[in-house]
């Protein structure tokens, strides 16, 4: 007699979806997502292949201070006589790394808190959400300034601070989604068949929440990159690294604009804008496609927060 293992997950499983079909949903709903994805893709490639792409060294003086664009230096030179194109490519790597790392930290913490709160409910939920609420009211930029001032400026600190502040909204959004998934029949059946909580979470809840978490990571990357440029501008960035933020800050300190050296300051700003736009288009499209009714998160790069819009207080998602 052979034993037939019934996988509890098969019972009343959600309709099987072809891999990546939710991507197709996204593209159908918002074609602009393709543009966003393309933008991001280009920058990610640049970041990965940075050392191969840089025409000159990022510490090499190859001409006069603030040299204008020429055929050998398409975007001119900065205040140290260093090639701007090389700086921008290097900056892509640093900025995207910071953005990605901070977003990952935020999503891990936020996702974790959200899943636990949404799944277990009850007191766990209440306590976790209260903690989240309190974190929500701490204004980001001042906190980042305080931490950088007290602990010293370094990329690591920046990533930690940004990550620590961004998780709150992720937690809320994920929690709302988990709550609705939890009520689905197949999950209930799985639990009644005796599957452990961890197993249910990983096999059933997580896959349903994953796209939302991805959307969140993408949006968080935008906020993180934005925050990093703000910190760098205020002199609290890491001057030993070349990020778009520090490029702008150097140009600002050395009065590039009034000197007419627009090439030292305009390109990095445009790069930031393109990446943030790309992240936004992709992230928002994923959210919209997944659950158009949810209309939950709203990217607030300006107020440096991902904030829930639908409902307030306890009803807030």
């Amino acid at each position, binding site marked *: 007699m052979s034993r037939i293992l019934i996988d509890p997950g098969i019972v009343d499983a959600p309709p099987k979806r072809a891999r990546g079909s939710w991507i197709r949903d996204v593209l159908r709903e918002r074609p602009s997502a393709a543009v966003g994805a393309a933008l991001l893709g280009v920058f990610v490639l640049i970041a990965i292949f940075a050392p191969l792409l840089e025409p000159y060294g990022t510490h090499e003086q190859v001409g006069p201070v603030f040299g204008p664009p020429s055929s050998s230096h398409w975007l001119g030179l900065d205040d140290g006589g260093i090639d701007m194109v090389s700086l921008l490519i290097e900056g892509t790597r640093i900025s995207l790394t910071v953005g990605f790392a901070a977003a990952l930290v935020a999503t891990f913490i936020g996702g974790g808190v959200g899943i636990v709160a949404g799944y277990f409910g009850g007191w766990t939920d209440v306590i976790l959400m209260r903690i989240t609420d309190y974190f929500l009211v701490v204004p980001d930029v001042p906190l980042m300034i305080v931490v950088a*001032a007290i602990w010293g400026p370094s990329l690591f600190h920046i990533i930690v601070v940004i990550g620590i502040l961004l998780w709150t909204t992720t937690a809320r959004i994920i929690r709302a989604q988990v709550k609705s998934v939890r009520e689905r029949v197949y999950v209930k059946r799985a639990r009644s068949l005796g599957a452990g909580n961890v197993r249910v979470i990983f096999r059933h809840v997580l896959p349903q929440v994953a796209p939302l978490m991805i959307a969140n990571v993408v949006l968080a990357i935008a906020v993180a990159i934005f925050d990093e440029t703000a910190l760098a501008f205020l002199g609290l960035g890491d*001057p*030993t690294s070349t990020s778009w933020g520090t490029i702008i800050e150097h140009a600002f300190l050395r009065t*590039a604009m009034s000197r007419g050296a627009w090439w030292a300051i305009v390109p990095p700003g445009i790069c930031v804008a393109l990446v943030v736009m790309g992240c936004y288009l992709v992230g928002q499209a994923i959210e919209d496609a997944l659950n158009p009714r949810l209309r939950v998160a709203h990217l607030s790069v300006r107020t440096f927060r991902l904030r829930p819009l639908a409902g307030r207080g306890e009803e807030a998602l």
Partner: protein
Amino acid sequence: MKRAVVRVVVLVLVASACTGSGAGGGGGGDGGPVFLKIAASDFIDSMNPYVGQNDDSYSAYQYIYPYLNQLDSSLNYVPDFATSWEHSDDQLTWTFHLVEGAKWSDGQPLTSKDVTFTYNTDIKYQDGPTGGAAGSIAHLIKVTAPDDHTVVFHYSQPVPTVLANVQQNAILPEHIWGQYATGDGKALKTFPNLPADGQPVVSGGPFMVTQFKPDEVALFERNPNYYGTAAQIDGFALQLFSNEDAEITAIQNGQLDAIESVPVTSVTTLQDAGIKVFIGPGLTERDFIINSNPDKTVHRELLNPLVKQAFEYAIDRAKIVETAWLGYAQPATTVVPPATGAWHDPTVQPLPFDLAKANALLDQAGYQKGSDGMRVADGHPMAYDVLFPGSERGAGDRAFQIIQGDFEQIGVKLTQRPMGGGAVFSTMTADNYTKWDLAMWNWTPPIDPDFVLSVLTCGQYGDWSDSGYCNPAYDKLYAEQGKELDPQKRQQIVYQMQKMVAEDRPYIMLTYGQTIDAWSPNWTGFVQSVQGLFPFLSKESLTSVHPA
């Protein structure tokens, strides 16, 4: 409701637009009052002379308060409120003769009573609220006033820097400040000393402060009761800019008349726009600091004279001047800058930039290069953090990169460690100067060399020392110059001290900054100095300026 809001907003916008553009207002033309608008570099942090520490604060006090003397553009001490002075043979008693019949801006008499009040209050509270003035009243027992226009300074021992000391002390009105000099004197520091009830701050100098908005703008108007030569302008305004680009565009558009501390990257921009730019020697000097605490526990190879010499050979001062300062700096030699005049020792020669020599010296010291190109000393690689305070940002970053690149060629790895100024200092003094190796910083010393020489003494540990340097022979010389009354002899001692510092290398002096000011061609008459057009050396500059 929303429509109403929109309507109001539109109205406001239209109204604002109709009031005209530009930040003009006040200032010259049409026969109206003549005012000068200056962009400040760091602005006035406090109107209270016991509190303020920014250069602009000192300059403000210079223009609104009487001082006994001042420094002319040749760096000689000339009269201000004291018309003449003499001292006893033993130099323990100095007598200053004051201007007679002087008045404060509110009409009250300005007499010797105010001088004695100021100095005796400083003496009385020197361990507390007036501690900042302690340097200028060293060895002063008391000040007496035999009559309304004479004061006598009584010293406990001869002080060679009396004239320099009194140049730094603003004389305050006793009828305003007297009430705060009671009890523990704490009130002396909390009195804001701001215009109140429409009345300007009571002043004795050529100008009085009529408006003061913290971190924004300070307005100075001519004091009709000034005892000296009246200013030719009706007043001036000092405005804080947090953005140098804005300053430059403002002066180009005629919204500003003068800028103190022009950034080096803007010099050609301004010259091309027809703005007058003055470039002259300045007092700020930048240094590369090597922790020279003889008792330090780790990285003792940095105390090796061969290593220090090698470091100096590896620093390309010319390139730093060129790239970081765009040529607007001088390669530095000794710790007392040439802008101090006769105190700078011109015979001290720096080591030239020579990487081969540097490498040879390090080889000679026995610190061989490893396979990765980095030298090893006492079992550890020669890799060090360089403490980097926020004040060095901008040009300093470039200077550091140049040094870092060259040090790589001699097998030493440098890592920049940026921190706030307070944090740098805490790190330096932690555990008695044992927790750091290298740093980059700057000094802007007064003209008299006493202060900048003092920071290298053993006694300044935990206080002003940022090098951990402690050399009894040096301290002995310092004490001698502090007592030597003959200026020639004193100069010789000061020269000797500079040679000692150049040999021992707690500092490798990098560059001497230049004073760069700019003003619109509509004005003339500024008196330039090593502190720019708004100095705290004398009252000359802004009392001489007038429309061109």
